[in-house]
């Protein structure tokens, strides 16, 4: 058995079901179906309650004025919405007041500062910074080319070049400089020393060396 829909039952309960044939059909079903009878009874009871409540409203309510107030409130809401929408719109970009000349000066000053900073860095720190930059670069391109550090930070490192020899330890260093660039001989002993030999104009032969502590 097919039951009427909820809307049909609601209209039927209020006596508002329009079509005569449909009203007859629903009525016939309700008379035979206990469940639908119960539903119609509940709907009619609820309707009665609503009517009772409506009857409790003040008798002097001015419905026209109430409608006008509601309309006014709706208009105020719409106007406020438009105002907020304008506020949220992106503001057209202002033209930068900084001229090209100022930008150029700023750029040059930056370049000079960076160059001066780089040139004033001691060799070990410059190498450390360069290594760090290389590591950033290699990590960014996702290809590891070279590990950054040649030795643990606390290791004693000996370095020898034509210009100087150096022993480095914990960010500190002692170098023996070579005042001559001609005829320089660099030597390294695996036992823990590095040396640079040079001959000065008088023919005197000087060998500067640096050592690990245990030697």
């Amino acid at each position: 058995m097919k039951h009427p829909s909820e809307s049909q039952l609601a209209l039927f309960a209020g006596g508002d079901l329009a079509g005569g044939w449909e009203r007859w059909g629903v009525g016939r079903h309700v008379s035979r179906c206990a469940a639908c009878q119960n539903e119609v009874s509940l709907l009619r009871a609820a309707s009665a309650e609503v009517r009772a409540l409506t009857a409790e409203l003040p008798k002097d309510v001015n419905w026209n004025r109430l409608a006008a107030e509601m309309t006014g409130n709706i208009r105020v809401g719409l106007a406020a919405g438009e105002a907020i929408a304008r506020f949220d719109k992106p503001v057209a970009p202002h033209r930068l007041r900084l001229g090209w000349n100022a930008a150029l000066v700023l750029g040059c000053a930056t370049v000079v500062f960076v160059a001066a900073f780089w040139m004033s860095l001691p060799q070990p720190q410059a190498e450390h910074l360069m290594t760090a930059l290389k590591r950033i670069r290699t990590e960014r391109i996702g290809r590891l080319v070279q590990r950054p550090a040649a030795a643990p930070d606390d290791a004693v490192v000996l370095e020898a070049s034509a210009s100087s020899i150096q022993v480095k330890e914990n960010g500190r260093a002692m170098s023996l400089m070579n005042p001559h660039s001609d005829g320089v001989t660099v030597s390294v002993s695996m036992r823990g020393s590095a040396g640079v030999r040079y001959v000065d104009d008088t023919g005197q032969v000087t060998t500067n060396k640096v050592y690990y502590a245990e030697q």
Partner: protein
Amino acid sequence: MPSSKRLTGFAAALAAALMGGSTARAAVLLNIDLPKDSPVALLSAEHGDSSETARGGAMLLDLHAALSLRNSTQRRIHGVTLLITAQDVTPGGRGSVTITSLDVGPGEAFPVRIDLRLLRPLQASNNVPVQVGLDGVLFDDLSFYGLDKLGSRRNLTLSEFEARRDRKYFKSLLAEGGPQRLQQEMIESMAHSADRPSLDVQMVRGGRATNFEPEKQVQFAFLRLPDSPIEPMEGMARIAGNEARAPRLEVKNRSDRPIRYLELGWILHDRGGQEFLAGSVPAELSLAPGQKSPILENTTLKFPQHGGQPLAIESMTGFVSSVEFADGSVWIPSRADLGMPELQRVMAPSDEEQRLVQIYRKKGLKALIAELNRF
């Protein structure tokens, strides 16, 4: 050795760096400690353009000192080594300044230059004491004086033997071929020095591979020097790109005398066909005649980029560069050994040859002949 006594101590107050108009001032204390019975005495010490400069987060101390030392003995001095320490800067390291090929008579003076640079953090103590001491003096009769903390006796003695060998060689050229032959040899020596490759090198004790190139074991090839008392048997080292580390060698004493020290020269060849002397592998041992012994060094050599290209080590060659017998006598390669093309390409001239070449360059052939005739 009598207890040392501080003969001279002086402080050099150094001009400081000017950074943004502010001035910092510090002092390097150069303390020269010579033993009471030292065979050399300090005549004078001058500081030139020594300075202290703030750079980045560190302070650079440049110390340029010109010392004048006098031979206070009755023997001729042929070599001196000064020991330099700056405990506040590098407690794990020290330096030395050695003057070789000297011939300083009694009462005569000779100069020693010390060009030192110290790098220390800005927040460190302002006073940086630098100690200069005497490690050893070698006399013309091969006797030695000094604490010998740096192995100066052996180094100075080897240098003296090389000097005698080379003077003898040049004098023989002069006797056999006259001044022209000597001149020709000087010119060839200068040409070899100009052609000899030289690389910067970094060395780390213990060490580990610091790049990602695969490490491989590479066998040594050996140059056989005919009269060498040591015969290298086999050897290998770990090579990774521009790094060479942990050489392991086995040598045999083929002489009839016990040996207590030896050094092997280490030549590296790169993929581009270049070769250069990487360094030496020394060993203190007790090697009876006919006995074999391993030599192990857990050290890493790293060679920075060469001419913009990373060095790629391909193969290695070893040779015996010096031997010290138990009785203190030494063996060094002969001039004929050094004339082998493989050695001539990479070996630097001796201290004495370099000195004689400089005399020839600066003063001419006559001055060179006169110098040779002094010995």
